[in-house]
């Protein structure tokens, strides 16, 4: 966790100057007044602002503005980070607002050392720094009041954006004190509150960005317009790695509004005065795609190839005890082979970027999870210094990992088009571009094998995994891949599960295709949790034990897991049989420092119609910043992964992706969503994130409910191939 130090005045000025703003102003001035948050801050505030660190500004109008370096993509960063600050600052929550910050070193991801939002890391990484930032500002305001009233600072207290001198019966607002506090020494290690004294953290406060998202005034990347901006769409090769041999733009250029047609490495860009003209132009563009270049994978062949690899030992990932010895003395062996397909993230906001490239600087507006990486890529491509590249992170219409794809595919395209057009350009990927555009959650196969002794005790478990490496083509390969094992390929498998099984072995095959893959919400857990928890369910069944009792037996000395398991079971009424025709399934999984259990109640009719009635979710994510937002994240992860489990499938035939829009890549809708009840464990552990843990358990819990209902063990997803989905 980075220690917060207040930047020196020199550093502070560098940050402000580098973003083109003055000392008093916000770090950057938005190009259009439509970026309401920052503009409102600008307009309302006159006079000297107090901003002793990048994170917090107090203005004379008594507003506290929390500047965030993370992307607000729905997970609630723009509410929970200000809550952390406001708590230690003793700010009046009604006078707290947020502002999107620029790319700056202070906002860097603690492990990856770049400004990036992901890995469910915002809350745990920022919990201390944000609190320290708030406490430091509180300290200088108190010092200013002490100076003003000529009293000992220790005699003063703070509450709701006021410094109060009880003895002298006087008080002053933070706004009134801001100017006087400027320049006072800022403590490097301010004293923080005891969590039992929290009055803001732990409260289910409504999210700060709710009103703007309900009234349509929220500006996403796709909503940004800059003067003289053109709009571009790209005709992409039908094959990954494909290239154009030539193209005929005669008809395209005849479409009114089309300005330019330009080849870029990934295809042919049609640039026009607006989206409709660009799209119409692309519709009549003829491209001669190279008949040889590109990936020609067919999904059917991939399945066969992966199945063959399951018979062959892979790279050993981890070995505990002696699985072969256990196998020799086994009374029973249980085994199962699994296959899960490629998945598309499909965030609701289409991918794209707005770029304005000048000879000596560049400005980009992007719905992005990785502005730091975008800035680096832009600087490299344009031959500029980082300081000459400004990346504005906009409100983001869903990320799920797609917008931190290390290939930076759509950002690179936008920059290439911008270089060619010499005008500001907005690149828009249509939904078809998105679904067909790669950077998928990789397809995965696995074989689980377990041995039981005569008493039904599990003596060994072996987990073989076949999956493309997500990390190997990224800048993190050297940091993360050890001995040929990509850690995200094996996370959540037998490799790191909590169950007390004395002998275990995990091995991995890492096939390579030109189909680009990347992390998608819960990453390796998105396939390994399904595989592991449905197989554990098989073992419970083989041991003739109740699934809850069976797991309890393997979790001795694991109080966190037991608490979550018991809480879910209690909330679901597990000990009471469900009503006739309804079956229950359970899954328990740890990821990103949080432990989650899901219990699904479902029915399967005689005609194989699946109906999901209810999901109970229990989570221990450590100390909870905003319980309502954690619950929302659980609801979100469940519905997100339910789409994957029920419908999700990207298939290829001779390299061409079959799917293109929401008709053939369907997502769960209102009428398919079950009742979801979330139970939060009141944990005093340090806070963990909640963005991904909720996404791992639903598929196995549902698979286990289907098994309980039908006796049928399903090991391949999506479920629509096995059952009718209501």
């Amino acid at each position, binding site marked *: 966790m980075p220690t917060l130090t207040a930047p020196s005045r020199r550093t502070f000025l560098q940050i402000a100057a580098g973003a083109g703003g003055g000392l008093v102003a916000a770090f950057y001035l938005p190009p259009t007044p439509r970026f309401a948050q920052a503009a409102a801050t600008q307009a309302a505030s006159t006079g000297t602002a107090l901003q002793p660190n990048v994170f917090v500004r107090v203005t004379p109008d008594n507003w506290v503005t929390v500047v965030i370096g993370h992307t607000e993509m729905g997970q609630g960063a723009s509410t929970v980070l200000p809550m952390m600050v406001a708590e230690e600052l003793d700010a009046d929550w009604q006078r707290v607002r947020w502002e999107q910050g620029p790319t700056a070193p202070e906002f860097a991801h603690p492990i990856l050392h770049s400004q990036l939002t992901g890995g469910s890391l915002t809350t745990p990484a920022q919990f201390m720094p944000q609190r320290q930032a708030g406490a430091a500002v509180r300290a200088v305001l108190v010092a200013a009041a002490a100076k003003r009233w000529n009293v000992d600072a220790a005699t003063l207290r703070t509450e709701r954006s006021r410094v109060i001198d009880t003895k002298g019966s006087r008080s002053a607002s933070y706004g009134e004190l801001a100017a006087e506090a400027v320049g006072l020494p800022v403590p490097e290690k301010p004293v923080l509150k005891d969590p039992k004294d929290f009055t803001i953290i732990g409260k289910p406060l409504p999210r700060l960005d709710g009103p703007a998202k309900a009234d349509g005034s929220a500006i996403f990347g*796709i909503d940004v317009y800059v003067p003289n901006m053109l709009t571009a769409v790209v005709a992409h090769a039908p094959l990954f790695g494909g290239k154009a041999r030539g193209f005929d733009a005669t008809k395209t250029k005849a479409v009114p509004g089309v300005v330019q047609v330009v080849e870029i490495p990934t295809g042919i860009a049609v640039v026009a005065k607006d989206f409709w003209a660009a799209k119409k132009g692309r519709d009549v563009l003829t491209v001669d795609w190279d008949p040889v270049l590109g990936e020609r994978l067919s999904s059917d062949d991939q399945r066969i190839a992966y199945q063959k690899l399951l018979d062959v030992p892979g790279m050993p990932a981890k070995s505990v005890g002696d699985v072969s010895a256990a196998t020799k003395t086994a009374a029973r062996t249980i085994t199962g082979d699994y296959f899960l397909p490629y998945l598309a993230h499909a965030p609701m906001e289409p991918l794209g970027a707005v770029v304005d490239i000048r000879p000596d600087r560049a400005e980009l507006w992007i719905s992005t999870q990785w502005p730091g990486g975008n800035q680096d890529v832009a600087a490299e491509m344009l031959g500029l210094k980082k300081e000459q590249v400004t990346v504005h992170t906009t409100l983001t219409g869903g990320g799920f990992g797609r917008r931190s794809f290390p290939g930076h595919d759509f950002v690179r395209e936008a920059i290439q088009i911008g270089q060619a057009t010499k005008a500001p350009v907005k690149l828009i990927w249509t939904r078809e571009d998105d679904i067909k555009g790669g950077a998928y959650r990789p397809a995965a196969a696995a074989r689980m094998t377990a041995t039981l002794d005569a008493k039904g005790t599990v003596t060994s478990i072996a987990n073989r995994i076949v999956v493309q490496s997500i990390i190997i083509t990224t800048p993190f390969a050297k940091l993360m891949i050890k001995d040929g094992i990509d850690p995200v390929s094996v996370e959540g498998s037998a490799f790191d599960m909590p169950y007390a099984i004395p002998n275990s072995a995990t091995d991995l095959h890492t096939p390579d295709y030109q189909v680009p893959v990347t992390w998608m919400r819960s990453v390796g857990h998105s396939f390994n949790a399904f595989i592991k928890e449905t197989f554990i369910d098989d073992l419970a069944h083989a041991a003739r034990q109740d699934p809850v009792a069976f797991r309890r037996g393997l979790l001795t000395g694991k*109080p966190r897991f037991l608490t979550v398991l018991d809480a879910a079971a209690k909330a679901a009424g597990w000990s009471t049989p469900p009503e006739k025709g309804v079956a229950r399934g359970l899954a328990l999984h740890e990821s990103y420092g949080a432990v989650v259990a899901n219990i699904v109640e479902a029915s399967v009719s005689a005609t194989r119609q699946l109906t999901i009635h209810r999901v109970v979710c229990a989570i221990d994510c450590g100390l909870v910043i905003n319980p309502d937002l954690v619950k929302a994240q659980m609801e979100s992860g469940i519905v997100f992964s339910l789409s994957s489990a029920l419908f999700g499938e990207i298939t290829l035939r001779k390299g061409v992706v079959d799917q293109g829009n929401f008709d053939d890549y369907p997502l769960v809708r209102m*009428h398919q969503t079950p009742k979801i009840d979330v139970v939060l464990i009141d944990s*005093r552990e340090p806070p963990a994130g909640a963005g991904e843990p909720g996404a791992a358990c639903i598929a196995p819990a549902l698979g286990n409910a289907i098994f309980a209902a039908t006796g049928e063990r399903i090991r391949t997803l999506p479920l629509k191939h096995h059952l009718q989905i209501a």
Partner: protein
Amino acid sequence: MNNAGPCACGDRAAILRLFPLDARETTPMITLTINGKTHQVDAPEDKPLLWVLRDDLRLTGTKFGCGAALCGACTVHVDGNPVRSCVLPASAVAGRTITTVEGLAATPIGKRVQAKWAELSVPQCGYCQSGQVMAAAALLTHVPKPTDADIDQAMSGNICRCGMYPRIRLALHQLAGTTPSATVSAPVPGVDVPPNE
């Protein structure tokens, strides 16, 4: 299998039956009445209302999600009815009363919907929510006391990738003063289970 849900109001052919294009040649200027204001727009006859709203009029509240009337992010009201503007030619609705999310608060129901959305923290990423509030307001206008089946019918054309359907359903019931069926999630803000020893 078309998983477009029970609402068929995005079907382009159906829309053209409701709002037939005039048998005229390319008349460039289109007069559109949007949120009570009249706009003269120079747009090709086939240009969808969505792109006139966004690119010509800079009303960006109405969103592009799929371009094929499958996701509902582009929902506007035409004469009070929810319509998918991404497949609706702007020229077909000249002279009609068009309401976008920017104008929704002018109606009492719209204002209440938006306030309830904020109160219950319904949006996550929020990109689908313009379409959701438009569909929700239309539902409550036509069906003041919707059942869960009514909610399914009216709202299943609007995809929320962030999965906020339970909150949308709850918001609608609270606005209507109706009781959700047993299958609807109840909100339980706060922390539930005491700390583990």
